[in-house]
């Protein structure tokens, strides 16, 4: 009796299934977007010579400004810019583990595991603070 209960409707099993689906979705989505953008990028930059050589500290550094911000990346995608499409794929990739933490929080809530609701909230809070402080 008890055994069938454990096997049949264990909440952990559903949880694992949902988290698995979320991860698969996030990974395939980001991989698909990145690959699409990559092919367009290769086509647009065909035959170009790469230069990522070290730049002294203090001098302007980093990718072009429009590739750093979500709104300008979106306008880049509208203009069919390969680099902007890749960046969208990267954003999807970064969002996946953070969504997983949010997902875990909801699951602990449903399971009424308030100790882990608290623990997961602390983790999210630290990540959020880190993001906001780091944006500066």
């Amino acid at each position: 009796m008890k055994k069938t209960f454990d096997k049949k409707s264990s909440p952990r099993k559903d949880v694992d299934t949902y988290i698995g689906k979320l991860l698969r979705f996030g990974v395939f989505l980001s991989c698909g977007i990145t690959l699409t953008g990559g092919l367009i990028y290769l086509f647009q930059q065909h035959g170009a010579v790469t230069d990522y050589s070290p730049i002294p500290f203090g001098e302007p550094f980093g990718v072009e400004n429009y590739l750093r911000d979500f709104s300008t990346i979106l306008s880049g995608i509208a203009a069919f810019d390969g680099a902007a499409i890749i960046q969208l794929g990267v954003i999807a990739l970064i969002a996946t583990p953070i969504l997983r933490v949010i997902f875990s929080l909801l699951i602990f809530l449903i399971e009424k595991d308030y100790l882990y609701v608290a623990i997961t909230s602390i983790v999210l809070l630290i990540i959020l603070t880190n993001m906001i402080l780091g944006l500066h």
Partner: protein
Amino acid sequence: MILELFILILFVGAIVAGFVGSLTGLGGGVVIIPLLTFGLGVDIRYAVGTALVTSIATSSGAAIAYIKEKITNVRIGMFLEIATTLGAVAGALIAVYLNKQYLAVIFGCVLIFSALRMTVKKAAQDSDDNTGTSRIAEKLKLNGSYPTAQGVVRYRVKNVIAGYFIMMGAGVLSGLFGIGSGAFKVLAMDTVMKIPFKVSATTSNFMVGVTAAASAVVYFRRGYIDPGLAMPVVTGVLLGAFLGSKILPKASVAKLKLFFGIVISFLAVSMIYNGITGKM
């Protein structure tokens, strides 16, 4: 170098990085950073930004398979994630004031020591070490079980406080160097908290993804994540991580430890080299 060739080299390197990362719980940046800096002459800041993307891709890609295998312990991961994220914030703050050259050398030495200890030491039996547990582990519901070919193995977590502080150290190192420092995460769980190696590796993998994602946002906004580097790395690492995760459930723990020891030594040598040559 011509773009097409550059991307091809990076793609192959990324497959290797994803494979190694998913087998050991390391972030995969261990392979990507040396490849980009020593191999392809890329600025260290781009390398670190790309390594973070690598870490996330490895983590998520491998986790898909691990979830099905039910090896990962999300409670342990989430509890220890408090320590690593706090440590990472502290590390990023300390980074401004400390000389990274000395740090890299010290870090490398610590890693070599850990690798030797782990590979030379007779591999402890994971499964029959079931005696005793800490009260904190009981209260935090950290004890768990995982399936093996011989049936479900239960395990009890020990030395929670010591493990927590080592995790915080691992977090500081991530904040300082931009790597996942999965090596330390696995050491804290496996050696100190007596969590079975496979559980440690997969749980560390989960944690690496979360910590790296938090810092990646910052790097993205600073412009350290370049699409030309990210594209071959994301796709290659996912492919490699997928291949690695197919092998893990069948792999023997002793062989994994030896393999993991070699990976740590590789990391150590590259860190020391970076420190001495002042490339960090």
